[in-house]
C-alpha cells in the first residue's frame, strides 16, 4: 500500500482543481448517516467491557480548560488531575493531554513535570480564527516554542464557506510548517472544523479531506464554543473520511470529537463508533481523543461504581 499523497498531488494545484475534487466526493446520505450513528448508539456495554471502555476513554481525554478566566492555579490543578484523575485509586489511567491556551502552555508543562501527559495548545486565533495569517502563525510558533506537544488549530470557516478551499488548504499547510521545532521534530497538528458552523454533512466531508490532504495529524469536530458540538453523526462521518483516506493513501489520521460529551454513556457510544467504523487501529489515544472536561468526572464516578459496587456522587470527584 502506498503511504504518500502522490495520487492526490494534482488536486491541490489550483483552487478549481481542489473544488472539482471536493465536489466530486460522494454526497452524504444524511438520513442514513444519522440512522447508523443512532443504531450504533444502542449497543449495551456492561461489566468488564464497560470497565475497559471507561479506562480507555479516560486515557483518551484531552482535559481541557479554555476560558478567559483561566489562571495559572487552575491550569496547575488541571495538570494534577490529568496525572492522577482519581487520587483515591492509583490504578486509574492518566489522561492523554491537557488542552490550554498558548500562554498557559509553559505553566501546564511545568506542572506536569515528567508525567506522560501531553500538552495541547489551541492556536491560530482560537476559537473564531478571525485574524491575519502572520498572526495565526506567530500564535502557533509561540505555543510550540513554549513546549506544546500538540497544536489544535481552527480553520477559517469564512474562507471555507465562501468556497475558497485552496486558501483553507494553504492555511493548514502553513500552520503545519509552523509546528516544526528547531530540532526538526514536529508538534502534532489537530485541525478543528467547527462542524456546527459548516451547515451540511457534505461540507464536513469536504473539510475533512482538505485537512487530511494538508497534512493534519488529527481532525477535530469543534471548539466547544458554539451551540452544536460533537455529535455521533458528524464524528461518524469524520471517521469514515479517515478510513477512506487511509485506504487510498496509507496515511492514518486521528479523530477528536470535542464539546458536549459529558457522560460515560456518550463516551462509550463514540468508542463503539470508532470500533465499528475504523477498527482497533484507532482505539488508542494516539489516534482518538475526547476534547472534554466534565466528562472525566462522570467517568470517574462510573469507575468508582464498578470498583465499589455503590453509586458515587459529585462530592467525591473534583468539580471544575
Amino acid at each position, binding site marked *: 500500500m502506498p503511504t504518500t499523497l502522490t495520487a492526490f498531488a494534482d488536486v491541490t494545484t489550483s483552487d478549481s482543481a481542489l473544488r472539482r475534487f471536493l465536489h466530486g466526493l460522494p454526497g452524504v446520505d444524511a438520513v442514513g448517516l444519522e440512522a447508523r450513528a443512532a443504531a450504533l448508539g444502542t449497543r449495551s456495554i456492561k461489566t468488564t467491557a464497560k470497565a475497559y471502555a471507561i479506562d480507555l476513554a479516560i486515557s483518551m481525554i484531552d482535559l481541557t480548560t479554555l476560558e478567559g478566566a483561566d489562571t495559572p492555579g487552575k491550569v496547575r490543578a488541571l495538570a494534577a488531575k490529568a496525572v492522577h484523575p482519581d487520587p483515591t485509586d492509583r490504578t486509574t489511567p492518566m489522561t492523554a493531554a491537557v488542552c490550554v491556551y498558548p500562554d498557559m502552555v509553559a505553566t501546564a508543562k511545568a506542572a506536569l513535570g515528567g508525567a506522560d501527559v501531553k500538552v495541547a495548545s489551541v492556536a491560530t486565533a482560537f476559537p473564531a480564527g478571525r485574524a491575519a495569517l502572520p498572526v495565526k502563525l506567530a500564535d502557533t510558533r509561540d505555543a510550540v516554542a513554549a513546549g506544546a506537544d500538540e497544536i489544535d488549530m481552527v480553520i477559517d470557516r469564512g474562507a471555507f464557506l465562501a468556497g475558497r478551499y485552496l486558501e483553507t488548504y494553504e492555511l493548514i499547510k502553513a500552520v503545519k510548517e509552523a509546528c516544526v521545532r528547531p530540532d526538526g521534530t514536529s508538534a502534532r497538528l489537530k485541525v478543528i472544523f467547527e462542524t456546527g458552523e459548516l451547515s451540511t454533512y457534505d461540507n464536513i466531508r469536504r473539510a475533512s479531506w482538505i485537512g487530511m490532504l494538508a497534512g493534519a495529524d488529527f481532525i477535530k469536530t469543534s471548539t466547544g464554543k458554539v451551540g452544536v458540538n460533537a455529535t455521533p453523526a458528524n464524528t461518524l462521518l469524520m471517521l469514515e473520511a479517515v478510513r477512506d483516506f487511509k485506504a487510498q493513501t496509507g496515511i492514518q489520521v486521528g479523530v477528536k470529537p470535542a464539546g458536549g460529551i459529558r457522560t460515560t454513556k456518550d463516551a462509550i457510544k463514540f468508542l463503539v463508533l470508532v470500533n465499528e467504523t475504523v477498527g482497533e487501529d484507532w482505539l488508542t489515544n494516539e489516534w482518538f481523543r475526547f476534547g472534554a472536561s466534565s466528562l472525566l468526572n462522570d467517568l470517574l464516578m462510573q469507575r*468508582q461504581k464498578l470498583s465499589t*459496587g*455503590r*453509586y*458515587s*456522587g*459529585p*462530592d*467525591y470527584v473534583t468539580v471544575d
Partner: protein
Amino acid sequence: MSESSTRLNVFKTYKLYVGGKFPRSESGRVYEVTDPKGKWLANAPLSSRKDARDAVVAARKAFGGWSGATAYNRGQVLYRVAEMLEGRREQFVREVAEAEGLSKSKAGAVVDAAIDRWVWYAGWTDKIGQVVGGANPVAGPFFNLSTPEPTGVVAVVAPQESSFLGLVSVIAPVIATGNTAVVIASEKAPLPALSLGEVLATSDLPGGVVNILSGKASEMGPHLAAHMDVNAIDLAGADAALAQELEIAAADNLKRVLRPQPVDDWAADPGTRRMTAFLETKTVWHPTGSLGASGSSY
C-alpha cells in the same frame, strides 16, 4: 355486539414521577397491583436500581433551587399541593379505598387527614427555624446564631400499610425544610403514591424535589442506602431485617438514618421529629461590635 352508547374503558397507565416527568421504568418491567382481596387494579412500574439512580440525579439537581427558596415560598408551594389534592379528592378516595380495602367514608377520612397534613407542614416551613434554631448565649462579644439547614437528598422508604396518609406523612416533613426526596412507594399499594406524582407535577413544586418510584424496597433500598450522593434515609416502611441491612449500607458515607418507628395511627399529631430528623444545625459567630475603638457599638 354492544350498544353504540357503551364506551370502552380507558385504563390509566400508572407511571413513575422522576425529575418532574413521568417515565416508565428503565427496565420496562411492571407488576400487578391488586386490592387486599386479590382483585387486579392496575399494572405499576417495577422500578430498577437504575431508576433509583436517575431519581437521585434529579433530586440532587433540584436541591439547590428548593433549599435556596425562601421558607415562605416553600410554604406557599406546599399549600398549593394541598389545594390540588382537594381538587382531586374523589380520585384519591377511590384509590385509597381500593388499595387499603376501606369503605368510602373511611377512605374519605384518610384523604382528608392527608390533605390537612400537607397544610400543617406547609405552615411549618417558616416556623421550624425558630423552634430548633435561635440565638445562643455565649461568654464573649459575639452574636451566636444556630439555624437549621436541610440535609440534602433524602431516600424515603414509604410506609407499607398506610398507602396515602402514611406516604404524605413521610414526604411532607422531608421537603418542608428544603430537602429533596426519592420515595419508594408502598410495594403492594403504590397507586395513590403514583397519582400523588400527578398532583405534585401540577402544583408549582419544581421537578425533582419529590421523585416517586414503585417497586420493591428490597431491590432499590440497598442501592439508595449505599449511594454516596444520598445524604439521609428514612426507613419508615422497611421491615426489621431490611432496615438493619440498609442502616449498615448507609454507614459508608455517614448518612442520617431515621429508623422505623411503630405508628399505630398515622392520623395522630406527628410532632416535629420527622422534620428535625433531616435538619443539620449551622452555628455562626458574629462580633457584636461592642468593643469598637470609638467605645460605641457602631
